[in-house]
């Protein structure tokens, strides 16, 4: 059987000019792409200028930075017991905040997934998450500290609310990205809406959901450190106190312990992510 590259008579042919362009080694970028590129550079330069970014100043300041870092050594581990206790509290805050935040995020994500919810639920859910995301966690922490007093409980509440805005959106997008075939199959067997989600969506989205939850947990451990600055529990308050008291040895010990805990958690969650995906 002979083969031919000649087009069939009935076949529509490619416009010669389009063919010439497609055959070129380098395609000329589209006008909108070039305009977009120029605009992006202009915005970048404008931002650099606005924040006073200055390489020369950075160079001059290197000496001071070196002096600050030098003061951190040697670290003083004399209060190791206290540091460990506060770090455990920080991790506990992150665990509770992550679990509460991810469970609530899951519910808001069902509402904020365009493939699962009607428009009148979808838009309010998205707007709610946008508003929450626009407010810094520190503001939530201050709000809850004034509501329930100083301590980790306020931090957990701030973390939970903050998680809704960030992870809820990502959960919703993970659910939107699943293959629709199993959803169609579930509707075809007469499944309820809950069953379509339970069998057609969640098993497919599960690896992404678990992966994002682990990322949320890592972020919450770091976040719990910051929340302590406003008295919302965890090791943050001790960190701030050490800085204010110029107790650099103690500060250094705290930072080293935080780095150790964050590294262990990052490695652990990376291992779990590898196993589930």
């Amino acid at each position, binding site marked *: 059987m002979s083969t031919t590259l000649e087009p*069939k008579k*009935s076949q529509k042919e490619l416009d010669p000019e389009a063919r010439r362009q497609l055959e070129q080694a380098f395609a000329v970028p589209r006008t909108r792409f070039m305009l977009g590129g120029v605009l992006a550079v202009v915005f970048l330069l404008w931002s650099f200028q606005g924040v006073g970014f200055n390489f020369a100043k950075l160079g001059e300041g290197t000496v001071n930075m070196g002096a600050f870092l030098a003061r951190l050594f040697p670290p003083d581990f004399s209060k190791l017991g206290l540091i460990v206790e506060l770090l455990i509290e920080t991790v506990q805050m992150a665990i509770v905040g992550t679990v509460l935040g991810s469970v609530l995020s899951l519910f808001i994500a069902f509402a904020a997934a365009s493939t699962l919810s009607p428009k009148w639920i979808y838009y309010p859910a998205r707007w709610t998450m946008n508003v929450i995301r626009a407010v810094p966690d520190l503001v939530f922490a201050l709000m809850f500290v004034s509501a329930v007093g100083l301590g980790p409980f306020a931090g957990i509440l701030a973390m939970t609310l903050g998680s809704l805005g960030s992870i809820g959106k990502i959960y919703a997008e993970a659910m939107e990205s699943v293959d629709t*075939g*199993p959803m*169609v*199959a*579930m*509707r*075809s*067997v*007469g*499944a*309820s809406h809950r*069953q379509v989600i*339970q*069998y*057609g969506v969640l*098993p*497919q989205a*599960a*690896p992404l959901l678990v992966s994002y939850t682990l990322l949320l947990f890592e972020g919450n451990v770091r976040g719990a450190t910051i929340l302590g600055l406003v008295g919302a529990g965890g090791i943050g308050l001790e960190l701030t106190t050490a800085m204010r008291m110029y107790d650099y040895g103690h500060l250094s010990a705290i930072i080293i312990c935080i780095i150790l805990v964050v590294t262990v958690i990052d490695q652990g969650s990376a291992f779990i992510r590898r196993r589930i995906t």
Partner: protein
Amino acid sequence: MTANTTVVPARGLAQAPATTAELRAMLPLVQVRDLKVEYNAADGLVLDGVDLDLFPGEMVALLGSSGSGKSTLMRTLTGFAPITSGTVRAAGYDVANLRRGELRSLRASAGQVFQQFNLIGRLSVLTNVLTGGLHDAGPYNLIGGFRSEQRKRALELLDRVGIAHKAKDEARSLSGGQQQRVAIARALMQQPKLILADEPVASLDPQLSDSVLELLRSIAREDGIPVLVSLHVLPLALRHSDRIVGLKHGRMLVSAPTEGIDPRSLDVLYDGEEAGDVYDA
């Protein structure tokens, strides 16, 4: 039925039925009359005056080129496509006038098999089959469970389609032919009154295509349910169907028993450039 009404033997039977079972076998489980479907005015009618009867125990091949309306016809039978005019009765339901709960019940009684299988890849083969019984799963299912009699039935169905030994495997680890068998077992789990298979072998090689279609035909005969299967390859339709129905541009041009049909008479369903493709088995 009034006293004057006479039972007209359907499907060419020479005599009137003797038993209730025979009478029931002659009544169509699907009855479509003058069906017109239009998704939007700009595209015009996708189905234009289609009449179709599906009887218990028969395997009907639905032929036609891409865009002829095969999938739309199947979708109208389970309420997934709009009915612009005409009547569609399937499994005892008037499809055009169903409330949400009735629509779910109709879908639960119509097993569907898809070209891409549409299994939940990360779940086990057994769970995939069990999902066919979701409509009747009861309160256990709120926490993901199924009744033990449902599990027993699902395993029996896996025995029937020949892959019970894969029951604990993830569905995505199976070959295409095996996945389609799981999809058929899922459809059977619904205890369906009819089965609709939309291009079920389009992703399979010829040998697997024959075995899957033979399985569907045996189900039609043994379970006494109609199976409507859309196909793109003519020899498969000729080998595995009792009746051939053909659509072109939304109109039904062919409806005849497969036995004795002249394959060349089906050329009318295809445009010149596609006619050669449909003979490749």
